[in-house]
């Protein structure tokens, strides 16, 4: 046992309605980066949260330096030296970097009431910022930092707390490739200083870039564990999926032959208001035909989300016209958009797409809720469930339980529920904003297939994405969006990946 | 005022209504200081909030006389003219005992007390007055206080609190620190199928018009009328004496009399409290 810093035996965590961990055995050695991978919903996030005391385990044992310990809360975990760097940065945005770094150490030297000297705080902060390689002024407010910087500040804080085990919960998912690279350097540096890390990710290539060992969780079970040097990416992916990967992209049928007739959605010279937050769109013109997937490809901050929201009346259009089936329309609110058959599936599903505390069925019937009601008012539960069940089956939502709460679904299944809402409301124009973002590999394939098949059925799909490969594989035509302007629209068959990446500013990134 | 004029005194009265707002009252005080009036007679809307304004008046050499309500710092005013709530409450309690004796109900009599908002002068003084009379009788065993509750001077709370007290059992008499609570209690007593005035003797305080009606109808046995008329009348005289004879009161507080209102004087008490009496 002594070679292991931290070990779990038969760790079980139950939530109402789901068992997230089903008896996990796990070891972490001294000075080791141990990657924990799995699809969304595999239980990896839950696992590190149990170790960090965010959740208390339902059953099972945890050993620290060979001694059995019980971690009932975050304080217990911190006493042992286990810290979690959260997926969502948990820093106080209104405080400075330095204040955030020392926040966790306050209890240690002389208690919370010990007087704080600004110069001391700054000194401590500078020391740890240097270790994580951040050259920012510690007096900067955290709110103005980018996500990558915030993550490194969290790591610095963990170091300031003298953590021996740092759990990183999907730290790279919001990072750019360069930022991620930098994080890996920091992780290697920490390893050299004798720290151990549990690195949660769903990107297999990252495992091979930085980790010593890898453990795969699937469906709450540990299914595979190995030295990184003794395995290869395809083996890890095979264990993650539990089946052979299907063809990653579906075959295109679509309206390749040319778009005759009236476009379903036509946008001419659309310009959005200055006063709104986010990117201002200027003079955007687009056409989407029935049965077509039009990709709007743009990087973060190009204005694609703003475009989606403008088309359903959530962003104010100050100039330009929108035509639906050749008829000029004005869309001032999502209510009017829905009436016309335009539905926006937001990028941020949890905040804008779903009511987490409600069931799958209730979420699906929410748009045009009166349709399942008697006299448009009185709910008929049986009708609701049967409507929901139809879409659940069509989209293969797992679990196929209409009464299951949406918040417990994995990212991919949540996405399916949002799409189900749109389909249930008989949408004609489906605007999908990063539909495969934060969704595990298996679900990505399914959702891409679904998008294609919807187009083949005659839906008009506007796919807003930053994923060049996804766009090339799925779309009939691609409009490239840079800084709120369309710089060109192309038939997918006519352009190469390199050309597209160059248009985007040479900064395209893969799936 | 007319009296003084009739006697040949050159006097003029300026009246301001502060609408129970300390801010309004403060600016009114400041205005009249500017007019260089000879005296200020004031019913302070708040014991502390208007003190800064009154300090300016004192600095300007204008005597201040408070009526009905007093300010926290006695140095700011020449004299306070207002009701002695302890004495009034004692009268009310004595009247309650008289009524109990007259009713021939068997001893020990069961009595309920309803108090006002804790911490206010009126509530604390009246509570003290009730106990001054009732406590000796509790000791000699002729009465039992079955409940003493707070109903915050409010009619709706008087109702619900009395309802709950009645759930503990019937009682003989109830005395409340104001009429609103007493009227709420009467509502509760009727709701329990009892007759107020017969089964339960109720005594209130303040003689508000609803309560006077209840006294006339025999539902309330007695209530206590204060003398707002005398407060004003005496205040004018105090100001007059001060200005003309440089009068210095020997006491800080001149209590105004209270009148017990019962069925016997329900039609005449109004005149009684409005009859001029010389300043003691």
């Amino acid at each position, binding site marked *: 046992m002594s070679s292991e810093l931290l070990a779990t035996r038969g760790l079980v965590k139950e939530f109402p309605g789901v068992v997230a961990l089903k008896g996990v055995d796990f070891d972490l050695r001294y000075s080791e980066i141990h990657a924990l991978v799995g699809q969304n919903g595999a239980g990896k996030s839950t696992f590190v949260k149990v170790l960090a005391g965010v959740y208390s385990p339902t059953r099972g044992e945890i050993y620290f330096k060979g001694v059995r310990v019980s971690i009932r809360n975050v304080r217990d975990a911190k006493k042992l030296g286990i810290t979690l760097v959260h997926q969502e940065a948990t820093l106080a945005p209104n405080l400075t970097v330095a204040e955030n770094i020392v926040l966790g150490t306050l209890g240690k030297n002389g208690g919370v009431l010990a007087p704080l000297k600004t110069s001391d705080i700054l000194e401590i902060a500078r020391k740890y910022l240097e270790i994580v390689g951040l050259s920012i002024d510690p007096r900067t407010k955290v709110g103005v930092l980018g996500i990558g910087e915030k993550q490194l500040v969290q790591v610095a804080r963990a170091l300031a707390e003298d953590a021996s085990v740092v759990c990183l919960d999907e730290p790279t998912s919001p990072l750019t490739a360069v930022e991620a690279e930098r994080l890996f350097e920091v992780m290697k540096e920490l390893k050299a200083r004798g720290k151990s890390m549990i690195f949660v990710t769903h990107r297999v290539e990252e495992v091979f870039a930085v980790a010593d060992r890898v453990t795969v969780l699937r469906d709450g079970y540990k299914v595979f564990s190995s030295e990184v040097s003794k395995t290869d990416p395809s083996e890890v992916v095979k264990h993650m999926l539990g089946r052979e990967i299907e063809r990653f992209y579906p075959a295109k049928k679509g309206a390749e032959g040319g778009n005759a007739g009236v476009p379903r959605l036509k946008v001419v010279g659309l310009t959005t208001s200055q006063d709104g937050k986010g990117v201002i769109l200027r003079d955007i013109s687009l056409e989407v035909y029935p049965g077509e997937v039009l990709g709007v490809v743009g990087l973060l901050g190009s204005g694609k989300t703003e475009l989606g929201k403008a088309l359903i009346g959530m962003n104010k259009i100050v100039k330009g016209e929108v035509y639906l089936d050749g008829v000029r329309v004005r869309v001032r609110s999502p209510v009017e958009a*829905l009436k016309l058959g335009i539905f926006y599936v937001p990028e941020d599903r949890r905040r804008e797409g779903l009511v987490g*505390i409600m069931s799958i069925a209730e979420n699906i019937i*929410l748009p045009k*809720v009166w349709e399942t009601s008697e006299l448009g008012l009185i*709910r008929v539960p049986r009708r609701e469930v049967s409507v929901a069940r139809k879409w659940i089956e069509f989209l293969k939502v797992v679990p196929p339980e209409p009464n299951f709460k949406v918040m417990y679904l994995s990212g991919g299944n949540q996405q399916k529920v949002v799409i189900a809402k749109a389909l249930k409301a008989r949408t004609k124009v489906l605007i999908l904003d990063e539909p495969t973002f934060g969704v595990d590999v298996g679900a990505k394939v399914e959702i891409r297939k679904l998008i294609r098949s919807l187009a083949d059925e005659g839906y008009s799909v506007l796919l807003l994405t930053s994923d060049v490969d996804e766009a090339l594989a799925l779309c009939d035509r691609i409009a490239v969006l840079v800084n709120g302007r369309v710089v060109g629209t192309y038939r997918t068959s006519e352009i190469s990946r390199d050309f597209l990446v160059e248009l985007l500013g040479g900064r395209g990134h893969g799936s | 005022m007319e009296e003084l004029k009739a006697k040949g005194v050159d006097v003029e009265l300026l009246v301001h209504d502060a609408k129970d707002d300390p801010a309004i009252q403060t600016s009114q005080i400041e205005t009249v200081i500017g007019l260089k009036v000879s005296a200020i007679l004031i019913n302070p809307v708040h014991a502390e909030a208007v003190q800064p304004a009154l300090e300016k008046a004192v600095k300007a050499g204008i005597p201040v006389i408070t009526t009905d309500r007093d300010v926290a710092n006695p140095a700011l005013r020449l004299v306070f003219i207002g009701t002695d709530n302890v004495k009034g409450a004692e009268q009310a309690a004595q009247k309650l005992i008289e009524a109990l004796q007259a009713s021939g109900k068997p001893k020990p009599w069961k009595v309920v007390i309803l108090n006002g908002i804790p911490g206010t002068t009126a509530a604390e003084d009246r509570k003290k007055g009730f106990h001054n009379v009732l406590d000796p009788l509790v000791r000699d065993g002729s009465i039992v206080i079955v409940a003493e509750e*707070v109903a915050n001077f409010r009619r709706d709370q008087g109702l619900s609190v009395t*309802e709950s007290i*009645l759930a*503990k059992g019937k009682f003989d008499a109830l005395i409340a620190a104001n009429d609103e609570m007493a009227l709420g209690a009467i*509502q509760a007593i009727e709701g329990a199928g009892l007759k107020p005035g017969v089964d339960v003797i109720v005594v209130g305080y303040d003689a508000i018009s609803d309560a006077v009606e209840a006294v006339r109808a025999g539902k309330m046995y007695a209530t206590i009328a204060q003398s707002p008329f005398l407060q004003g009348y005496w205040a004018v005289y105090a100001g007059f004496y001060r200005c003309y004879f440089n009068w210095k009161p020997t006491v800080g507080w001149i209590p105004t009399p209270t009148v017990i209102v019962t069925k016997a004087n329900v039609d005449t008490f109004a005149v009684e409290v409005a009859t001029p009496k010389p300043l003691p």
Partner: protein
Amino acid sequence: MARKLSLSLSKLGRPLRELLRYELGGPLVALMALITASSILSPRFLEPYNQRILLLQTAPLALLGLGESMVILMGSIDLSPGSTMALAGTISAMTFTRFGHPLSVSILVGVLVGLAIGLVNGLLVTKAKIPSFVATLASLVAGRGMVLVLTEGQPIVGLSQYRVITEEVAGLPTMVWLFIAFGVLNYFLLKRTSVGLVTYAIGGNEEAVRYSGVRVDAVKLFNFILAGGYYAVAGLMMNARLEVAYPWTGWGYELDAIASCVLGGITLSGGVGSPLGPVVGAYMLTLLTNILILLGVNPYFQWVVKGFILVAAAAALTRGVRYVK
């Protein structure tokens, strides 16, 4: 013996756990505990008279709680219940006494006043985009001000005809039937209609509902208006109870209304709780005041006890919903 006891306890435990699964389970368990404790502590507690006055006292508060719950379930807050009930009661009484209209018209006018205040609250929140706390705080202050202006601080007397609301029908006072009826109505509205579904959804995630193309503002407006109507009915009940329109009716009751919701298991962040929760909560609050008087607890100490019990109840109830939110 000990074994037998623990066996019967575990037998009791299972239905209890089963009950706690329901939205209203926690509040009901708390209520049963309070009733059991009260009837052990005071033999008077269960007497018919006491149960009757408990229902009478609960009725207005329950209506305030029901109205408040419509708003809290959406994740908003309403501070206007106390003032709304007073203004509705006052204007209804004036219609009856000063303008000599029949009772039915006066009652209708009172309800309309409540609906109107709700409309104002709703418009301030949805159209003027003022946070509900601020908008309804304005109604709280202005509403009370209007009551005092209209009544000059004096009660409006001569409302003995309002007694129809307190008179007994089929063994219970009309107002008790009323609050039962409104409780059922509220349950139906929130659990069995699409408006109710949207109400819960708004409390769960307003943004998502907006993106779903649902008329969020219309539902909000509707709920504020309906809440105003509930408060008005409470005001009319108080007119009947006191047989006067008392200008200080409902002073501070907004807090009791909110407490009724919280005790009834409705979370202040919205989206969670049973439509009947406020009724149970209002009954608990009333019961607490009642039992403390029955026991003759020192009035000042009563507040301390109430404070402790409220905190304990709120803590126990939030424990249950922590997972959900």
